[in-house]
């Protein structure tokens, strides 16, 4: 946002609009329910699960009070909820549902049907740990498990971002270049149930932003009958999967376009990721979700002490922004990737593996004509360690993240990983291979 705005200009008018806009205290679930009301999808089908429940409850009130024209269906399971929105979307409707944890797990079969049928469904996922044992609190195992289901995944740091992501998700999903379903992920309880003072758009602004969904083809068009999802064997299945991959690649173009349009409307800009104080950083953490706020606080504190710390907050996990990731992290010396999910690969969590893969092969050792090293990581790619944290709602506080930075700075200063590298809140590393460190933050060993 420019600081020097002349009165009477379009920019000033935009600022006035923003000033007129309602600032209101909402929980994450209230904010998302509000976004859904403003989008006013044709069909919402849902089944209750903690901590998603009150999104649907608020939405049910909107329906009952006549504030939306949405067909609202309360079904008998999440499998049915996803099936109902698949049916609705295939019939040309704008359709949404919402879920958490085991609800998402139960949708599994149908997640792939939504993406494989190229149906632009939008679904808030309020992140919660998966059973067993039963736990209702935040971690990312649910959505991370669905990372390869062909859904776009947007992650949110707070209620404002969850609200903004839902509205943008509709446009991303329905873009003819994409036509893929989108999950909007945000942390259970930490975001879903905490109040935040946030800025909301007017109903008209949202409706204008998302526009009207007009699918090229759909069911219920008797003059052009189609069958969705029929048998597709070795003759065409492979091509259809390749098209899905291309759509996901196209989303990489569309997401920033939608974000730019949204920024023009709201003044809030979102990229595939947010690089915070990374330009001259030596060490950084990569985080998605609410812990990014804590990490930002820690980075500021370390900076005041003169330590070159930075943060990379990942907003889009699917499509994975590998190129931007390499650009942002290539010049650093050490990076800790924080996973609020253990992939149980025994070789690090899902975000870690994606990030380190994005950094592989970056070291451009061939000098240019002037003798300067080329490539994005002239000194070689940074050391990347993995920190699994916060499973089942285990709290993560600034001291925990500071311990992660301490580890990174010790490595930068040349300290080799040793037996005591698990000192303090960091567990001993599982050390799946000589060049891989996987720590667990704040766990009892």
């Amino acid at each position, binding site marked *: 946002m420019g600081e020097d705005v002349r009165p009477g200009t379009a920019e000033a008018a935009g600022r006035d609009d923003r000033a007129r806009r309602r600032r209101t205290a909402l929980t994450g679930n209230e904010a998302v329910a509000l976004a859904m009301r403003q989008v006013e999808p044709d069909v919402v089908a849902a*089944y*209750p*699960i*903690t901590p998603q*429940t*009150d999104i*649907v*409850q608020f939405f*049910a*009130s909107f329906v*009952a*009070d006549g504030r939306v024209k949405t067909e609202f269906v*309360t079904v*008998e*399971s999440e499998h049915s909820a996803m099936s109902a929105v698949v049916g609705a979307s295939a019939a040309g409707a704008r359709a949404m549902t919402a879920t958490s944890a*085991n609800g998402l797990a*139960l949708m599994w079969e149908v997640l792939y049907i939504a993406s494989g049928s190229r149906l632009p469904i939008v679904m808030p996922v309020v992140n919660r740990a998966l*059973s*067993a*044992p*039963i736990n209702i609190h935040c971690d990312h195992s649910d959505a991370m498990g669905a990372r390869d289901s062909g859904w776009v995944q947007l992650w949110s740091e707070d209620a404002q971002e969850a609200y903004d992501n839902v509205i943008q998700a509709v446009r991303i999903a329905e873009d003819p270049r994409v036509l893929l379903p989108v999950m909007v992920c945000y942390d259970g309880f930490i975001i879903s149930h905490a109040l935040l003072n946030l800025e909301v758009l007017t109903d008209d602004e949202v409706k204008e932003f998302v526009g009207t969904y007009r699918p090229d083809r759909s069911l219920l068009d008797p003059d052009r009958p189609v069958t969705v999802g029929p048998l597709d064997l070795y003759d065409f299945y492979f091509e259809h999967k390749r098209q899905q991959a291309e759509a996901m690649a196209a989303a990489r173009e569309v997401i920033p376009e939608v974000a730019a349009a949204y920024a023009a409307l709201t003044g809030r800009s979102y990229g595939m990721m947010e690089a915070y104080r990374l330009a001259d950083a030596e060490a950084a953490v990569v985080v998605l979700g609410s812990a990014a706020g804590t990490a930002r606080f820690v980075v500021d504190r370390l900076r005041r002490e003169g330590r070159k710390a930075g943060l990379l907050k990942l907003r889009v996990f699917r499509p994975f922004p590998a190129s931007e990731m390499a650009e942002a992290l290539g010049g650093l010396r050490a990076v800790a990737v924080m996973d609020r999910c253990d992939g149980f690969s025994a070789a690090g969590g899902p975000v870690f593996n994606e990030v380190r893969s994005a950094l592989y092969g970056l070291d451009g050792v061939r000098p240019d004509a002037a003798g300067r090293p080329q490539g994005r990581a002239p000194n070689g790619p940074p050391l990347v360690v993995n920190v699994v944290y916060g499973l089942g709602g285990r709290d993560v506080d600034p001291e925990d993240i500071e311990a992660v930075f301490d580890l990174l700075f010790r490595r930068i200063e040349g300290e080799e990983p040793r037996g005591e590298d698990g000192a303090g809140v960091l567990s001993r590393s599982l050390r799946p291979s000589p060049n891989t460190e996987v720590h667990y933050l704040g766990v009892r060993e």
Partner: protein
Amino acid sequence: MVAPEDGSGRTDVLSYLRVDRFPHLWCPGCGHGIVLGALVRAIMRLELDPRRVVVVSGIGCAARAAGYLNFDGVHTTHGRAIAFASGIKLARPELEVIVITGDGDLAAIGGNHFVHACRRNMGITVVCFNNSIYGMTSGQYSPMTPYHAMATTAPYGHIERPFDLCALAAGCGATYVARGAAYFPARLADYIAGGLRHKGFAFIEAVTQCPTYFGRRNKMPRGVDLLRWQKERAVPVERAARMTPEELEGKFTVGVFRDAEELEYTEEYDRIIALAGYREGGESGCPAPGR
């Protein structure tokens, strides 16, 4: 009351419960504790060996009972308790397998497992804590929410009809079917004991109360209001047989609706194993059953 001869010193209801897990999560006025007490009293009356009792539950307020009962048990996923229990019973038919479930867990997300378990007649006992609402997630209507009742997902009244769970179970072939209510805890314990004694699939619906999420929205905000509702509307099945449909309007029947002896599934399964020629250490090629 005779203590089971397992050296556990279980002599009263509390000795069957994990009191170290208390306070339990049920709200003041909730009927689930009454139903759980009736279940424990039935187990005590039959002097079931606690080492041979397995409790399986799904998800919801009722399902939390599995964690409070001091038996081996599995707290499983939403709607699937009967499926898990079927596996346990198949592997160890001699065990007393008890499923604790709620109306949402059993009749909505788990409906398919329920109807097929009734049909199969496997010897497990299912106790459904029917409080007419999804309590755990704060009051969405369930398949047992009465017509016109209020729920958070039906703020102007519910427009679907509820199941008659006992008629559904009997229609699907369950061989023991009974309904009791929290207001009549002694009779409820009788019905549950009858189910536990029964050889085939036993289903007991326990009408119970949720003042917090059902009662408050339906002008019965206290547990006692809902208990009074149960008292006034419960009609013994014998008396109901002499009443007209108009007289039965708005009532629910309690009692044992079916108690029939039919082929029990694990016995049939053993017969098939014998038919296929499996002998312990034999050469039939059949995989050894895990028992």
